[in-house]
């Protein structure tokens, strides 16, 4: 009997432990897991907050420093263009009139300003006529000269002339220059600032939107008030045009070949690895390549947008090829089967079906690549685009070979200058660059939304 009951006894294998507790109270492990999750969420939140704070700080510092660059102090005075000074021979021939330098025009402007101050009944105290001329930008004489040479009929008449105020005066109204700093400054004086206040009160001087910041060329170290982004914007646009025209077709063609036509073997693997590596090569290396190949070997001109564009094309290519290949890979194979099944050729399958479906990815990749190229500085320094360029490049295509600057290089250039007026200029240029980038990224998003299709 006992033997029999022994054999019927339950087996010795232990049952798995059950969770024996109320559902209303979490056990130890659950509590620990929940705490872990809460901690993880908190860390994530902290990271996001830090990132947002950094972004806010960045935008605040750039906009507070850069927005004043879009406004400028101007002096508006009537100037009598004395023919006896500006055209001594009296022939009205622009070629002869060109012999009068800006010094001659500067004197006229000084006289006009003195007359205007007197007419408004403002007391200038012990200030000399030379001090008065110092109120106005050195660039004003050149502006007036350009205007007269372009239209010799103005000789002998009195024109309403809007002159840029000197950078220090402008800085005074923007809070950069104070009475104390002016007292220590060779280029200005508290008297000049006080006179400026009076001129504003009399309506001769005022601050307004300055389109010149976007259209004028760069100016020399002493004239931050006259410096503009015109040449840099055109140079950047030319380079982007070159990059778009070269990198998009070459990149898409390379991606389509590698993804759809090339056999999968050791060579294509090698190419694939190299494309991935090229995307990570520091951009300055491309600058050295451009210097040695395009300038020293191919003999293309320095500082030219064509060279900048070619260098940036090399840099952008892998950044277009990688997302394009990913987009091609993401097209479902059933679409290829369907096209091949009705007798489409390989190329028809790609151009009619695969590429249109991959288009959102291709366009996004291209625009992101272009945006990166737009902000690239280092390779452009090496091919001489850092030069001081005052002349606008010509119209395409020959203009592509003229010297020009570029937006990021112009920013770098201005931060190197001594006059504090250029800090404001550099920040203003950063705003312009950011606006361009935002426009491009918005375009990428819109295009992606538009071409997005479900399958």
């Amino acid at each position, binding site marked *: 009997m006992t033997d029999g009951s022994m054999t019927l006894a339950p087996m010795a294998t232990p049952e798995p432990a059950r969770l024996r507790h109320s559902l209303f109270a979490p056990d130890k492990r659950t509590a620990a897991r929940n705490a872990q999750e809460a901690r993880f969420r908190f860390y994530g939140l902290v990271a996001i907050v830090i990132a947002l704070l950094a972004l806010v700080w960045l935008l605040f510092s750039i906009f507070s420093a850069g927005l004043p660059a879009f406004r400028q102090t101007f002096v508006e005075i009537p100037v009598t263009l004395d023919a006896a000074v500006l055209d001594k021979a009296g022939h009205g021939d622009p070629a002869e009139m060109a012999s009068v330098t800006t010094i001659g025009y500067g004197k006229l402007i000084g006289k006009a300003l003195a007359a205007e101050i007197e007419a408004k009944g403002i007391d200038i105290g012990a200030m000399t006529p030379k001090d008065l001329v110092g109120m106005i930008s050195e660039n004003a004489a050149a502006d007036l000269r350009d205007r007269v040479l372009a239209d010799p009929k103005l000789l002998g008449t009195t024109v309403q002339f809007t002159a840029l105020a000197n950078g220090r005066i402008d800085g005074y109204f923007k809070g950069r220059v104070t009475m104390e700093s002016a007292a220590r400054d060779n280029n200005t004086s508290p008297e000049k600032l006080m006179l400026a206040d009076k001129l504003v009160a009399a309506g001769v001087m005022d601050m307004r939107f300055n389109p010149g910041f976007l259209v004028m060329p760069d100016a020399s170290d002493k004239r931050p008030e006259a410096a503009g982004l015109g040449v840099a914007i055109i140079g950047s646009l030319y380079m982007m045009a070159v990059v778009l025209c070269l990198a998009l077709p070459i990149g898409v063609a390379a991606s389509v070949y590698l993804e759809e036509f090339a056999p999968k073997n050791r060579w294509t693997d090698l190419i694939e690895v190299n494309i991935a590596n090229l995307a990570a090569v520091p951009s300055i290396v491309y600058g050295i390549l451009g210097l040695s190949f395009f300038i020293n070997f191919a003999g293309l001109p320095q500082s030219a947008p064509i060279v900048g564009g070619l260098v940036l094309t090399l840099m952008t290519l892998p950044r277009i090829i990688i997302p394009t290949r990913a987009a091609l890979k993401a097209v479902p194979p059933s679409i290829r*089967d*369907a096209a091949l*099944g*009705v*007798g489409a*050729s390989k190329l028809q399958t790609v151009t009619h079906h695969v590429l249109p479906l991959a288009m959102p990815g291709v366009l996004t990749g291209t625009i992101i690549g272009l945006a990166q190229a737009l902000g690239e500085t280092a390779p452009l320094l090496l091919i001489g685009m850092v030069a001081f360029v005052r002349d606008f490049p010509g119209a395409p295509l020959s203009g592509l070979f003229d010297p020009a600057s570029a937006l990021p290089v112009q920013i770098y250039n201005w931060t190197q200058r001594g006059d504090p007026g250029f800090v404001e200029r550099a920040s203003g240029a950063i705003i312009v660059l950011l606006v361009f980038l935002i426009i491009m990224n918005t375009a990428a998003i819109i295009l992606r939304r538009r071409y997005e*299709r479900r*399958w």
Partner: protein
Amino acid sequence: MKDLRLERDVQTETNKIEARKVQVYYGTNHALKDVDVDILDKTVTAFIGPSGCGKSTFLRCLNRMNDTVASAKVQGAITLDGEDIYDARVDPVQLRAKIGMVFQKPNPFPKSIYDNVAYGPKIHGLTRTKAELDEVVEACLRKAALWNEVKDRLQSPGTGLSGGQQQRLCIARAIATSPEVLLMDEPCSALDPIATAQVEELIDELRSQFSVVIVTHSMQQAARVSQRTAFFHLGNLVEYGETGAIFTNPKDPRTESYITGRIG
């Protein structure tokens, strides 16, 4: 739904496709061994067999879709009307216009219903005018029993149709190039029973104009729609003959095991 019609006549005895000693390798894997099949004209031929038995592989050999698989290697001879389709002079693009294909998952192009059907005739230059193309599209959609459902929305996307409608659209697309043979790779596996019945009825109607080859997992479906059945097992063609004979009087014990549900 039609009943199992095990007794039925084969209207023709001309061979459309003849396959002799077909071997397929995927890399080192010998996927198809010594397959000999004669596919008759104006007949529905069903390939049945358990998963991985090579029936889809063989189907894809018939219009050289295996060319797109880099590791696939096909040996042996397959002739269409006496011409070797693996001859060096044959352009697979031309071959696929003659041998249409419908896939397991409905795969309409993400274009309009009209463009889906018109694509084949367009790329092969089968029509000269827009009016002719319109006619072809209407005729194909009618043949695919889809015209009445879509005639008012030919410009809406083909991907917006229901699963069964999409598959019938794919059939319309496949017959728009006027193929001589229509290959169907489990065309009903993604469809519900009602859509399946519609497609099966359609297959029976298509038989009057095309030679149809259908791969299916469902033995009932093979019995319902086909006149000839081939049973594949582990890369071998085990038995091939009249559908009625295969299902009622199989000669090979493996066929019998499969159709009675003991293997597969």
